[in-house]
């Protein structure tokens, strides 16, 4: 069973349907036990960095993620759900960066680009031996964001470029993340979801 962490308002319906194409049962949940024990957990992004952390804190989400990691259960963060896995985020922070869950070191900061948000379909540079992108290395994926991690956390990372190079996905053992929205990336996104579900 795949659990999608429900910790605020937003569009989780398409994520639920997209992950269901993997053949797994998919539930939306904010229940600690369900989220901790699911075969796979999806951490979607809700709103801005600080709002997302507030929502996550309200359901003890950071603890859920860490507990799953130590229990070797796969988790994937999407969009802001990826960003909050880093140590710090400086979205609307007025100089004092917000703390993230801190699975990976690094700051999520504003993209240096003329037009923001970075909105639309962009390509990826995947690492050799990628499992997440197997078969869709040359596809485009759908992005909507203005902030990103500029330094890789030192694990298997995928890069994209908009104004500057940024981390568009991470594969770090049981912890994965994508800055783009696989659930909105058509067939390529569904293929990526299927690849991830094979690790469950």
């Amino acid at each position, binding site marked *: 069973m795949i659990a999608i962490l429900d910790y605020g*308002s*937003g*569009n989780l*319906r*398409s994520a639920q*349907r*997209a992950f269901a194409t993997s053949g797994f049962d998919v539930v939306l949940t904010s229940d600690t036990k369900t989220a901790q024990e699911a075969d796979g957990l999806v951490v979607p992004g809700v*709103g*801005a960095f600080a709002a997302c952390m507030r929502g996550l804190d309200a359901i003890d989400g950071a603890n859920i993620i860490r507990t799953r990691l130590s229990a070797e259960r796969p988790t994937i963060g999407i969009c802001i759900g990826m960003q909050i896995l880093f140590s710090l985020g400086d979205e609307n922070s007025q100089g004092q960066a917000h703390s993230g869950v801190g699975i990976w070191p690094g700051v999520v900061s504003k993209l240096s680009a*003329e*037009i*923001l*948000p*970075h*909105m*639309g*379909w*962009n*390509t990826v540079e995947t690492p050799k031996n990628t499992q997440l992108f197997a078969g*869709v290395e*040359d*596809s*485009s994926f*759908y*992005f*909507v*964001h*203005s902030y990103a991690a500029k330094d890789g956390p030192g694990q298997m990372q995928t890069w994209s*470029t*908009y104004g500057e190079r940024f981390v568009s996905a991470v594969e770090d053992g049981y912890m994965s993340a994508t800055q783009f*929205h696989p*659930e*909105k*990336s*058509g*067939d*390529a*996104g*569904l*293929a990526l979801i299927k690849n991830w579900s094979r690790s469950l």
Partner: protein
Amino acid sequence: MTLAVRIIPCLDVTQGRVVKGVNFTNLIDAGDPVEMAALYGAEGADELTFLDISASSSGRDTTLDVVRRTAEQVFIPLTVGGGIRTVQDVDRLLRAGADKVSINTAAITRPELIAEIADRFGSQVLVLSIDARRARTVSGFEVTTHGGRESANLDALEWVQRACALGIGEILLNSMDADGTRAGYDTGMIAAVRAVSKVPLIASGGAGGLEDFAAALDAGADALLAASVFHFGIHRISDVKSFLGAQSYPVRNSTSL
């Protein structure tokens, strides 16, 4: 590689049906928005836009159901506009499966709505739809309401700048002069709006020949919306992408799988 140009078909929906006449294949019920959304998705549309032109609340409930069913089977971004007046309207649409909402008249009537929606859901969900035409205003472009029939007494470029400051994530610029003519997008207006804004810009109104799409991009558009040329089968989405791709505009090749 760089960010691809987005090609966006727009479906006018009321009472759960697509309104504009449609005749591009006999194989489907072409009046069903969910089926059309799926077909356009399969043809390589980069996003979809539903414009709810229902006049009644029961019509809006039907649209919620259409959004719900579309989001269950079409895995590309869906924007829904028409009749959105409150943060609660936005919440309902997002929960039904919309990824973005577009607001128009309600933002003109009460600009604070922009900030309210952006604060709650983030700017990235909010598309400001502007129906503009050439007129004797400061910039030469004015905002209209009621499908272009009435002036909003608002200079279009001033409105764009004000809305950007309030927190919109994207602009859908519809030329009421060019709308429905198939004589080309209003490239002068696109360039003027591009010059005063730093959010993605979707050009709308006037798409006819394939070269019109390229001209809008040259004027500064990031995305291209069209309705009748797709609904009437004048161009397929893949035709537009092939044409643009051959001229080295970045397009998403969705047939690689």
